[in-house]
């Protein structure tokens, strides 16, 4: 019965934590959908779902990573079906892409716009892993939790994402500048 008091307290604490991470959640949803309106819808839905299941959140663990899991589930179950991008990374294709024309040197002629463009072209699983690591600064273990995959898969996705980004950026830079 006293749990009800706790519920009201936890609603306050949920709201506080959620608003503190709203930029991260929106950014994550936007990187998933590449559409601002859909990203806003996902964040709103995730806020409600998070509130409903907040009693299941384990204190002392990463709230942001927990909310990312909810955001990604909503995306996978509803939004990804609508999007035209492939559901899974075609690893064979990605590997072929990496092993094409030997990448020898890395010139620092990189510009933010080119970089965002390259990021947008990555398959969802690589794009998300890269964002969670570089922008949200989550460790491998927490990325694995959000992506529901083993740590080894996080490592290989991060490796592929890096290789693809290097090549794409160099290509784009050569084409445009």
């Amino acid at each position, binding site marked *: *019965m*006293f749990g*009800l008091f706790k519920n009201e307290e936890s609603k306050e604490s949920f709201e506080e934590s959620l608003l503190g991470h709203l930029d991260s959640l929106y*950014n994550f949803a936007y990187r998933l959908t590449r559409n601002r309106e859909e990203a806003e819808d996902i964040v709103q839905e995730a806020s*409600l779902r998070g509130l409903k299941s907040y009693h299941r959140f*384990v204190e*002392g663990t990463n709230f942001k990573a927990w909310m990312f899991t909810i955001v990604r589930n909503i995306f996978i179950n509803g939004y990804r079906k609508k999007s035209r991008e492939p559901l899974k990374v075609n690893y064979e294709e990605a590997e072929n892409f990496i092993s094409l024309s030997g990448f020898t040197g890395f010139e620092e002629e990189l510009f933010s716009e080119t970089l965002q463009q390259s990021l947008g072209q990555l398959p969802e699983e690589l794009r998300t892993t890269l964002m969670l690591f*570089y922008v949200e600064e989550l460790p491998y273990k*927490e990325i694995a939790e959000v992506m529901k995959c083993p740590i080894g898969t996080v490592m290989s996705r991060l490796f592929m994402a890096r290789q693809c980004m290097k090549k794409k950026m160099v290509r784009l830079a050569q084409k445009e500048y």
Partner: protein
Amino acid sequence: MDCQRFQEYLYPFLDKEIDENLKIEMEKHISNCPVCSFEIEKERKFSHVLKTHLIKEKAPFALHEAVVEQLEKSKRKFSWRYVFAGQIAPSFALLVIVVAVFFNLRPHGDNTFPVFSEAVENHLEYLRGIYPLEFQTGDVKEALAWFRGKTDFAVTPPHINLSKVHLVGGRLVHLKDKKSAYFLLEKDGYKISAFHTDLHDVSLPKVSAKSGINPLGMRLVKTEKGYHTIYCFHPEDGTACILVSDMPLEELEKLIV
């Protein structure tokens, strides 16, 4: 350390995801090998460029407002709970405590979370063969097909790397009086029980030294009678997968997906 081994751990080293001993070995190698030293510098620069140029999109103010309003609405919607919690619940709780004390009953607090103990008891009973398996298969698809229609929720594969463990079989079980799916798995002579269960209205225990429940990533872990119980949540549908084994916790943890 040779260059090949260095290349193998290049990214975990760069990402600060290796242990201290390996880190020292790698640093030593860098100071002696100009090729690997160049390689790591190049990767560091690339990581720096990614980190500084990947833009974090800011949530629009309208979204901020919409979320706040939505949360407020959700609070108002359940305002009767405030009334209940503020006026009726305390009196009722007091009555329950008085009755419990009167009948010498011990109220179950947050620190007793029977799912852990119940899972361990079940694990032991299945190992002793008290409840035989209802199906035997090494194929997870066949196992999931067997559970179809038998539970109130969609049974999903256990949170364990099925390419590294051997599925033996399973059966329907009751955990906290709820119909649950039971999978028996094996790895290097260790038996692992996996329960997929619906715990919608079961409150979770507090992580504390007193309860012996500790966080393991975004999961809970408790050790009882030498058996580790790991509680994995499915926040999206309110179900959970509970793993029980006497395998060393570190090894068990590595198998979790």
